[in-house]
């Protein structure tokens, strides 16, 4: 499963399908890949809460708004956020994992704001010990993704956004 997602991602197929299925008008936020590390067990957090328990990470404050294309705030949007730890691994990649970490589900407030504490994302390689890693090697491509954080928005009446 993980290899298949990665293969689709490295070939650009995931983003091609996303761009057809979820076309974005010019003034809206672009989507990108979901990746293989989203889970459905992140805890609901209040605005201002901390999503990471990694003491080695550099503290980070994230302050965002969510609006419609006319600039009106969207309240009550469910915002799923996830990131790696300071070593570039998601919680699910640790064999001794005890529960969710580096992920949370937030809700935008009445002014469309949401904010949380996290750690500064680090660059990391995708798992490259399988067939996709072999393919990248043959193509002389490196397996690193730039430092990033995932956001997934869900609000009734709006096209889902994963970015």
């Amino acid at each position: 499963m993980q290899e298949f997602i990665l293969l689709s991602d490295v070939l650009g197929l995931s983003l091609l399908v996303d761009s057809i299925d979820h076309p974005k008008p010019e003034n809206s936020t672009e989507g990108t890949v979901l990746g293989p590390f989203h889970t459905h067990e992140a805890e609901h957090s209040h605005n201002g809460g901390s999503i990471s328990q990694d003491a080695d990470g550099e503290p980070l404050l994230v302050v965002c708004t969510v609006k419609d294309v006319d600039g009106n705030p969207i309240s009550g949007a469910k915002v799923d956020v996830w990131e790696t730890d300071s070593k570039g691994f998601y919680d699910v990649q640790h064999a001794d994992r005890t529960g969710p970490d580096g992920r949370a589900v937030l809700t935008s407030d009445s002014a469309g704001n949401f904010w949380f504490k996290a750690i500064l994302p680090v660059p990391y390689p995708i798992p490259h010990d399988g067939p996709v890693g072999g393919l990248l090697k043959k193509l002389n491509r490196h397996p690193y993704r730039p430092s990033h954080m995932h956001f997934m928005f869900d609000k009734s009446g709006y096209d889902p956004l994963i970015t």
Partner: protein
Amino acid sequence: MFGVKQSLIVEVGKVDDQDQAKKYGVKTGTSLITYDFVLVTDEAARKLRRSKAEEAMNSQGRKVRFIDDLPVPDVD
């Protein structure tokens, strides 16, 4: 890799004013990322999907009908 989109790249800043640090309960100097997300309504996304599909079919010279917004070859 994975098709990085320029519009999604953010500069990391710092929390540099006391009021902001107090408001969010962090120390000044903490790294800060801000971003304004813009969502599209289901209706607008559906219309855009349809118009792009029509454009793609026209550019290939295909004669199609749309059934539930899906292009189906018009054979009659």
